[in-house]
């Protein structure tokens, strides 16, 4: 057994995996939806059409519920590197620490400086300033994702550094920042946040149309959403394929695990080009106990040639091999979801082309709407499985080929590690359960179609609240829901 699978090291991995997995539930909506909210706000300001305003304010409520959870779990992340992986943090500090420092100063704080204005600034600052605040939240959260992917991409393909005196010292900042994995990994993650948020829009819209509540309003939203998805979903598949080839090039052990590819060559000496649809891998025996194989597909996928050589697991020492089960199946789930979502986008736009994307038509054949509601959950699973593939595929290294995971683990015992895990399971589930409960509350309540539009002339009279003294500070988003 490799050291990474012994109890204290395995627990430290679980500790970190759990808080990261729970954190990534929130950030995609913050990153992706802030752009969508900005577009809705601009659409409202440009066209003066109140519908965009109502939709913006409605989705903003969901955004707020999500945002608090994202920040709360994000503060943990910033500290967890040092707490759980102290020696790792020290060794990678010259590069990784700097990048995390960049992230807090140019992104985390940037976002915090405008989120208050975006959420509570309605009516307190001008419309233009408000739209500008929304834009800044969108830009800053995307910047945040960029820096995090720089740091994580570098762990996958560490370039531009030299290991000296136990520290990874930077020799070239540009090659370290624009490391090969980041260049494709960041677009893949960023597009994922947009795709997830668009499906969030689509799923909520589908639910309202199904329930025949504000059906026309949400059909109005569904059209541009599906149009955006017909571009985003195939683009994501294309970038995903590029990333796969990048991993094949820079991280062959991870690729071999993702594809359950044990033998570089077949017994007759020819390259093994078989792609495993499903398999029962056995890492210790170095082979698949069972698999359904399609010849040439693996070479086509990874080398774009008919029978190019793809390095298999047998090329690497047993203690350099990652687990195969998780990357193999997680990867397949992610890819299947990617294609399914592409088909949903195709279907929706096909309906639109035939003039059937109206509330009336859609309700007559509710299968599309039901599948669309279901599709709202799938991107979350795809993000999870994608990251599990990425992180478990990199094992047993924390910095690929340079620092083993056990070399980075903090000085802590099994008791402390278990305490962390159990505590975080309780708190993160409280956050998760709470957020989902309040998502459903907000969705069930539906958009507020009655309170006056911010900045309109009857707004002041209305917000005095029926004889109550007018509070100088109101929470405009939560107004008038008595």
């Amino acid at each position, binding site marked *: 057994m490799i*050291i990474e699978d012994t109890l204290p090291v395995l627990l430290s991995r679980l500790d970190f995996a759990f808080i990261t997995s729970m954190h990534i539930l929130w950030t995609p909506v913050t990153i992706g939806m802030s752009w969508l909210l900005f577009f809705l706000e601009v659409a409202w300001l440009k066209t003066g059409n109140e519908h965009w305003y109502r939709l913006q304010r409605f989705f903003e409520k969901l955004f707020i519920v999500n945002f608090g959870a994202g920040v709360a779990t994000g503060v943990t992340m910033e500290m967890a590197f040092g707490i759980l992986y102290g020696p790792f943090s020290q060794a990678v500090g010259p590069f990784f620490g700097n990048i995390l*420092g960049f992230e807090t100063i140019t992104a985390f704080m940037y976002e915090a400086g405008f989120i208050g204005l975006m959420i509570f600034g309605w009516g307190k600052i001008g419309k233009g300033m408000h739209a500008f605040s929304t834009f800044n939240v969108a830009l800053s959260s995307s910047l945040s994702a960029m820096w995090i992917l720089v740091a994580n991409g570098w762990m996958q393909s560490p370039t531009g550094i030299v290991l000296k005196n136990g520290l990874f010292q930077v020799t070239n900042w540009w090659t370290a920042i624009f490391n090969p994995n980041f260049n494709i990994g960041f677009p893949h993650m960023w597009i994922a946040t947009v795709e997830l948020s668009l499906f969030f829009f689509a799923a909520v819209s589908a639910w309202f149309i199904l329930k025949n509540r504000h059906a026309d309003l949400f059909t109005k939203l569904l059209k541009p959403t599906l149009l955006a998805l017909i571009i985003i979903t195939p683009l994501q598949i294309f970038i995903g394929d590029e990333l796969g080839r990048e991993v094949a090039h820079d991280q062959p052990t991870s690729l071999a695990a993702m594809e359950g590819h044990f033998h570089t060559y077949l017994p007759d000496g020819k390259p093994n080009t078989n792609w495993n649809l499903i398999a029962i891998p056995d890492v210790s025996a170095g082979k698949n106990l069972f698999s359904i194989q399609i010849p040439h597909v693996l070479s086509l996928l990874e080398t774009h040639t008919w029978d190019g050589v793809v390095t298999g697991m047998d090329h690497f020492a047993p203690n350099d091999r990652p687990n195969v089960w998780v990357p193999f199946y997680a990867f397949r789930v992610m890819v299947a979801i990617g294609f399914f979502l592409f088909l949903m986008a195709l279907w929706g736009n096909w309906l639109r082309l035939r003039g059937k994307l109206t509330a009336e038509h859609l309700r007559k054949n509710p299968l599309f709407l039901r599948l669309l509601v279901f599709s709202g959950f799938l991107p979350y699973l795809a993000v999870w499985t994608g990251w599990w593939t990425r992180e478990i595929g990199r094992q047993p290294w924390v910095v690929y080929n340079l620092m083993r995971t056990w070399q980075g683990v903090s000085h802590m015992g099994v008791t402390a590690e278990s305490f962390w895990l159990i505590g975080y399971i309780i708190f993160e589930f409280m956050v998760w359960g709470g957020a989902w409960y309040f998502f459903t509350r*907000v969705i069930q309540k539906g958009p507020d179609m009655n309170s006056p539009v911010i900045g309109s002339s009857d707004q002041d009279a209305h917000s005095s609240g029926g004889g109550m003294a007018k509070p100088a500070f109101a929470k405009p988003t939560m107004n008038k829901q008595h």
Partner: protein
Amino acid sequence: MNEIFRIHSTLGTFWWILLGVFFVIYIVLDGADLGAGVFSLLLNNENDRAAVMSSMAGTWDANETWLVVAGGVIFGAFPLVYGATFNYLMIPLMFALWGIISRAVAFEFHVLAKSSRKFWGFMFGFGSLIAALFAGIALGATLLGFSMTTGNAQGIQVANDPFVNTVPHFSGDALSFLSAFSVWTGIAALIAGGLAGTLYLCARFEQNDPIYLKAHKAATLFSFLALAAVVITLIWSYAIMPDAAKWTGSGWFGWLILLIAILISAYKMMTNHAAHRDFSALLWCGAIVVFMWGGMWATNFPYIIPQTWTISAGANPANDLAILTLFMTGFVPVMITYNIYQIWVFRKRITHLAGYESH
């Protein structure tokens, strides 16, 4: 080579000062928010608690983020300190983070909740209390320093491990942070937070509002408690911290001036508070924090963690510090500017009715 060392030491000291500034901003801003949260536990009306929450609704996230910025700067400029110290502080930071998580989600959930409203109101106050208490404990523990070794942190030995005998890691155990002094600094943090929080609420609520009246009374009580806590902490620190010997060394005159500045600020804070000049009282309270934190930072010099990590030993290599300085320094005033703008937008006094507004 000498040049490089000089640059390294200059840049390290620069980031050490900036780190102190970020911590001070964090303590002044979020200390007030956390303290107001602790005070909210004393309010027995859920709508009043909601009013306290809406008083900081637009700014709490940015205020809390200064802690993240401080953390990011430690990681970026002093990663060796970051990796060892956070490892040492695992337990107190874990609790503080749970407090921060509870408080953060309570902000978003409380306004939407109906049947669970009391629960989230409690989580807001209790989360604030836990965060302040354990942040104080972590600070006290840090001041006492910790033990380190250069072996593998998990005690795993292999041949030719490039990471051993280079960088020292934390080597104590999970409860090393716990001492009478660190528990005391936790309690002192609660007292200081209570003072800052109640002064802040005085500045945020209309002067005839019931919440204002309660907070005003509590602030008077907290200011006496805080004065006592400061005296106890100073005497205790002088008794146990080797670096505190500076206070009575050849530079005693400077330290005496600092002490007088603290006492004058405390006096000004209390008189302004009594005269209902709430914002001035809050600013003088901030001045006390600035003087005390500055004094602590100066006492520790050249250490960043007393008797454990010096600034130069814990800092990144010169090249990386230079990059951090080059790329990030310009953002600091920008960051401060948009924070001031955001606070300014939400400057108006409110009443307890803001708590009803959220429903």
